[in-house]
């Protein structure tokens, strides 16, 4: 599961050459040189404030690249690229009582168009997106009436409704219990296989994602690096990354996980 199931004739989903990012004149990180081959699942990891979300926003064209060459799906990142789906972190909390799951998804599909006229294929693609994430049963409920796991499914549905090639998720596992984390991870893996999308996940916890990850971009000491999954999960690197002791354990079944060590 950790390797893409087919060779990659397509260009990389993301390609960075010596990219640096600044916010308000302050350097966030620099020297980002990596390729993320299409069809994989990638994590963006790093300590708080290291610029993980900023990297996502750069991929979305919302934050300009200060220097270097960043390309997403073969072009310069630009706002409004319908080939990219996005699940932001703080999902619609304040208005959750006012919006139905179905409307959230429908707006993501038709909300970019002016005027009142609807299109039939919109309804159809909304239904398809709701079905793919298993949200058919609660599509007519308000977001505030959904559990955390269901809300995350709704958020993923609105990200995939336009049939994107790349889906970016910001901390999709935060605030979920273990079972819901597992379900969301299985869902992401299904989406990658069934819809042939590339998935990039910002996360502060690598462990739950390890079974499906292809590789990870780690933001460390103001620089962005890429490692295939076997290389990233290495005690010394993770210890350095989080500034606390991290041990990498491989179980008898071959599962990989990390744990912090108290000193």
């Amino acid at each position, binding site marked *: 599961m950790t390797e893409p199931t087919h060779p990659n004739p397509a260009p990389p989903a993301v390609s960075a050459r010596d990219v640096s990012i600044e916010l308000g004149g302050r350097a966030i990180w620099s020297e980002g040189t990596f390729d993320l081959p299409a069809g994989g699942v990638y994590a963006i990891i790093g300590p708080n404030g290291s610029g993980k979300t900023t990297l996502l926003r750069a991929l979305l064209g919302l934050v300009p690249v200060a220097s270097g060459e960043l390309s997403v799906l073969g072009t310069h990142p630009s706002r*409004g690229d319908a080939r990219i789906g*996005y699940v932001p972190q703080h999902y619609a909390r304040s208005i959750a*009582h*006012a919006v139905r799951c179905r409307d*959230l998804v429908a707006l993501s599909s038709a*909300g970019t168009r*002016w*005027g009142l006229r609807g299109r039939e294929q919109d309804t159809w693609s909304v239904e398809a997106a709701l079905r793919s994430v298993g949200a058919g049963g609660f599509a007519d409920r308000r977001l505030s009436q959904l559990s955390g796991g269901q809300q995350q499914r709704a958020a993923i549905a609105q990200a995939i409704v336009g049939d994107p090639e790349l889906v970016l998720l910001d901390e999709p596992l935060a605030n979920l219990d273990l079972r819901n984390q597992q379900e969301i991870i299985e869902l992401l893996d299904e989406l990658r296989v069934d819809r042939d999308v590339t998935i990039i996940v910002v996360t502060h916890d690598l462990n739950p994602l390890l079974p499906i990850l292809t590789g990870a971009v780690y933001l460390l000491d103001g620089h962005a690096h890429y490692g295939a999954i076997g290389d990233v999960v290495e005690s010394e690197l993770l210890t350095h990354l989080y500034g606390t002791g991290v041990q990498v354990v491989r179980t008898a079944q071959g599962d990989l996980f990390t744990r912090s060590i108290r000193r």
Partner: protein
Amino acid sequence: MSTVQFHPLLAAAGYQSTWFHTLREPFMRNAFLAGALVALAAGIIGYFVVIRSGEFSAHALGHIGFPGATGAVLIGLSPTLGLAVFCIGGAIIIGASGRHVDERATATGTILALATGTGILFSSLAAKSSNTVTNVLFGNLLAVSSDQLAMFLWFTVVLLLVVAVVARPLTFASVNPEVAEARGVPVRLLGLVFLVLMGLVITMAVQVVGTLLLFALVVTPPATALRLTARPLRVVTLAVIIGLVSVLGGLVLAVMFNLPPSFFIVACSSFVWIVVLAATRGTRSPH
């Protein structure tokens, strides 16, 4: 005058036996039409107010209109014109002041206090503006002139046309702003458009229920509707119906008892809200 005997309590409350006759007076036609237009406009913009958590901005815009109206009287202009200029100008200033809600709340609150203070200053400088002050603070639907009615009509037409164009992207930008921004929707511009439209509606609503009672027309009906349904079109439709029932019902009651319409309009809309709140408590309806 009348030979019919009424319950003493009704008589004590100022019950007017000629109320049905009064309803057919020409000035009542203006009041009914103006009230209906405001209910329609407030129901539509109100949906966006509640899904954007813009209640505070709505409240503040009403207050910002106050010095506009009293200032216009001071320099010899129509208070309605001053009201419109300040409400819409205020909307633009609030919209341009900042993108974070907290930041905007501080800006809004500061402008609100400044506006109310300036309004008091203007009204004390203008010798005979006390009537204007009462009308702006509490509204007077019975005093709507044909000119005002024409303005209500134009404002409502503009609102309907603009909303027909922006409804979907504005809803997207309201409920899912980060994704809307990423998808190329002009989120900030739409926020400004929304505020200007709200300025139009508030200019109208102030003349009906006044600055101090705005909430009952612009926020209460859509908030009530939202407890019953979350489907956007149904929320708007229900909010318009609740607004119409409140304004028209309030107007009839005001004529019946010869008391200010503003009170009855606010009372009707609050009554519907309380009933719906009690009926839906604990059972948040899925549809």
